[in-house]
């Protein structure tokens, strides 16, 4: 075993007690061996210190990078959740405030009367755009002719009539053939336009327009019972109903 191996064995505590004693005795007299031990000890200390420090900064780097990654993931998740939430809020806003807040034209009148009538369900909000779809869907149902108690009660109620106001057509329960134009006509003294609203027998708005005194509705209505209402800016002034009959071929 050469000197450096012996020194290393000593410094790494790999000697037996007797070898160690003998080596330390030799150190007392052999100056070059003592220098060799000293130098090797410093080198080993340096290696160990370096490795210790390296391990610390490596673990710090790993931990730091991990935390940064987690933070990035959290930020990403947050952004995604926020985006979805915003989308949901926007969609809900569109549905509720754009479509939903568009009051059914008869709502003003109905809300005043309903205190007395206590309806079973509110008027369903709808739009002109969804009218056709609603009509197609309703066409498949058999109860297109059933009466809507809430509107029936309004027809029979005494509504606030204007002086000189008279409905010419359609008369209550007047019947039309499918495809025939339905002429709405009335007389009144005021010059301001009235809002004409046509409802299906489910309470859904089929049409809504501002009309001066008469109006011919030419769009094809599916067979069924319809209610119509005239209203000013503030209040409803009239509610009536008419029937679009089943075509003969269908009736059979």
């Amino acid at each position, binding site marked *: 075993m050469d000197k450096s191996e012996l020194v290393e064995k000593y410094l790494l505590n790999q000697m037996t007690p007797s070898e160690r004693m003998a080596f330390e005795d030799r150190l007392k007299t052999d100056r070059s061996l003592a220098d060799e031990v000293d130098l090797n000890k410093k080198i080993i200390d340096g*290696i160990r210190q*370096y490795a210790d*420090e390296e391990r*610390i*900064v490596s673990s710090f780097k790993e931990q730091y990078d991990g935390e940064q990654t987690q933070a990035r993931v959290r930020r990403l998740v947050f952004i995604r959740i926020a985006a979805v939430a915003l989308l949901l809020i926007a969609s809900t806003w569109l549905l509720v405030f754009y479509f939903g807040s568009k009051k059914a034209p008869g709502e003003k009148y109905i809300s005043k009367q309903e205190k007395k009538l206590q309806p079973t369900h509110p008027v369903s909000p709808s739009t002109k755009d969804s009218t056709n779809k609603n009509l197609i869907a309703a066409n498949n149902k058999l109860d297109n002719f059933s009466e809507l108690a809430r509107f029936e009660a309004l027809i029979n109620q005494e509504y606030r009539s204007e002086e000189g106001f008279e409905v010419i057509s359609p008369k209550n329960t007047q019947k039309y053939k499918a495809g025939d134009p339905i002429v709405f006509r009335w007389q009144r003294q005021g010059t301001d336009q009235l809002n004409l609203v046509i409802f299906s027998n489910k309470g859904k708005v089929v049409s809504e327009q501002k009309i001066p005194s008469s109006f011919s509705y030419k769009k094809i209505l599916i067979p069924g019972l319809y209610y119509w209402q005239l209203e000013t800016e503030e209040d409803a002034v009239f509610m009536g109903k008419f029937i679009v009959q089943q075509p003969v071929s269908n009736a059979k």
Partner: protein
Amino acid sequence: MADELLINKIKKGDKNALYELYKSYKEPFLMYCLKNHSFSNTPEGLHDVETIYHDIIVKFRRNCMNGKLNELEKASLKTYLFSIGNNLIKNYFRDNKLASQNMPIESNSFIISEEPQYGYDDTTLKVINLLRSGKLGEPCTKLLTYFFYEGLSIPEIQDLLNFPTANAVSQRKIRCLSKLRAMI
């Protein structure tokens, strides 16, 4: 006061406290280097800055452990760390023969003018710096670390570093130690 508390913990060997310090100043130091020195904002440039930052942490820890933090009485912890960093940056540009913008550090009230003593023997410190600089080469550094720090046996190192025989490991270890000795 917060600085003192942190330093006291680090002096006692609290690694969590040292990590708190590491975490607190890493980003500011990175920004400082990119803003005030000629480090490129590329993966290589950022890696170099990170290496320097690691050296700062290591040197700071040594100073803490060896009670060499008297200079801190005159400055904030951040200024002290950045001063160490400035010396390291200076060495980095010198060693790599690069020109730095040589901007002043954030606070001129306190600059470490000389490389502080860390309570280690000169030879030990040279060994640490040599290994840290990478001048010994990665294979030798790994081998010596495995043997003297991890306490792995020659056959274990043979497996880890894919040496053909145990004797080849022993021979390489001797050559690496000789090389290290020659460099110091």
